[in-house]
């Protein structure tokens, strides 16, 4: 449908490699970009002075430990059926993973979507089903729509433990962190499908950071990088869209309306980035009966201890390369992940390990 006639990737790569402008640290915000860059081996092909920093866009990576502690508490102490995405069951809490809890008899189900979790609740009306929801603006509207459907169908044994996060506040915090030093953002294609390109304008206008929305095919990643380097060469900082087939300037207003109807912004803790104002999505009070925190976790708190030796917090801010962690590839591998960044194939450590550049 939109495939160009010739494969533009080799010519785009040549074009990128011809760059001889100011040194440029490009943060790829999205985990899917991290994977595309690792798979392409793009790091080793970059022109002098250009480097990639992996950003905070891997959902399970930025979800702090205490969320997994809460999920473990729900299955161990409250006896709920806990449904969530495949990656989430392997992320260590302070005391084990959901997968380990399942091996000891807890009822943990891996689902593809919030709708699947709602279907479990409907087919097993005598069980309490909690969906552990995490991710950014690509995913949160799907959970919001599922909550509206649950309310309409009066499903009363379903609730959501929301760890949803807003991407823009994290990008804003990273840009202002002097340890990080970002010169440009490769903005996430799929979250931008909802947010649109307009959301990045403050980053470009107020912080002078070129922001280019890019897709995930090799040619699309290269096209995004080429536009970003053009801006650096010209000394500009604008928002550009290298993924117009999926991203409209205004994004998806219907999805944002559903999101806002169900969720409200709250201050939220990120692994690596700490507490960021208005960076998380909690259920609005009107949806209290569908909120697992209000139903099961009132007055309970969790330590959220990071695994000893894990440097995810630094990797997630882009100040440490994954192989700078002493555990990388030794105690910590995709088969036996110590930290969240190794669990997901989209995590900086996981992507680097799977596609180790020779």
């Amino acid at each position, binding site marked *: 449908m*939109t495939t160009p006639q010739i494969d533009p990737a080799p010519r785009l790569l040549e074009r990128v490699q011809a*760059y001889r402008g100011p040194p440029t640290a490009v943060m790829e915000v999205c985990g899917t970009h991290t994977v595309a860059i690792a798979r392409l081996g793009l790091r080793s092909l970059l022109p002098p002075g250009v480097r990639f920093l992996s950003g905070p866009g891997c959902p399970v990576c930025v979800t702090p430990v205490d969320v997994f502690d809460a999920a473990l508490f729900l299955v161990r102490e409250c006896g709920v059926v806990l449904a969530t995405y495949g990656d989430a069951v392997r992320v260590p809490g302070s005391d084990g993973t959901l997968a380990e809890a399942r091996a000891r008899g807890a009822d943990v189900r891996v689902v593809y*979507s919030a709708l699947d979790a709602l279907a479990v609740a409907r087919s097993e009306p005598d069980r309490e089903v909690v969906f552990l929801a995490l991710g950014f603006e690509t995913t949160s509207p*799907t959970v919001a729509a599922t909550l509206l459907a649950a309310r309409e169908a009066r499903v009363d044994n379903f609730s959501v433990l929301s760890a949803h996060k807003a991407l823009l506040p994290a990008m804003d915090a990273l840009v202002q962190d002097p340890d990080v030093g970002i010169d440009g953002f490769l903005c996430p294609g799929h979250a931008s499908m909802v947010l649109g390109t307009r959301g990045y304008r403050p980053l470009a206008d107020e912080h002078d950071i070129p922001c280019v929305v890019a897709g995930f095919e090799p040619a699309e990643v290269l096209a995004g990088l080429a536009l970003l380097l053009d801006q650096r060469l010209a000394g500009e900082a604008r928002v550009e869209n290298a993924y117009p087939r999926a991203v409209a300037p205004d994004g998806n207003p219907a999805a944002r309306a559903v999101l806002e109807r169900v969720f409200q912004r709250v201050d939220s803790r990120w692994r690596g980035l700490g507490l960021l104002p208005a960076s998380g999505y909690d259920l609005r009070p009107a949806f209290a009966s569908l909120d697992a925190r209000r139903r099961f976790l009132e007055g309970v708190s969790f330590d959220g201890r990071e695994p000893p030796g894990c440097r995810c917090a630094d990797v997630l801010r882009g100040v440490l390369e994954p192989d700078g962690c002493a555990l990388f590839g030794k105690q910590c591998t995709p088969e036996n992940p110590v930290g969240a960044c190794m669990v*997901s194939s*989209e995590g900086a450590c996981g992507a680097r390990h799977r596609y180790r550049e020779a």
Partner: protein
Amino acid sequence: MCVAIPGEIIAVDPGGTAEVDFGGVRRSISLALVPDAGPGDFVIVHAGFALHRVDPAEARETRALFRELLDDDPAD
């Protein structure tokens, strides 16, 4: 986790659930977040929901972008 793939809407039921064809594989997909999409439209789907209706003009823009990038020589 954020894999979003495009498919073609084949049919829509009155409840807003569409049958979407992904290169021969058909799935039931909710249109709750793209309420104006209908049969014949291509949509990008994530976690059981259509999230974006691919507009033919936007697809053309993608081709134009690539042409532009490849036609002017960055070395100039």
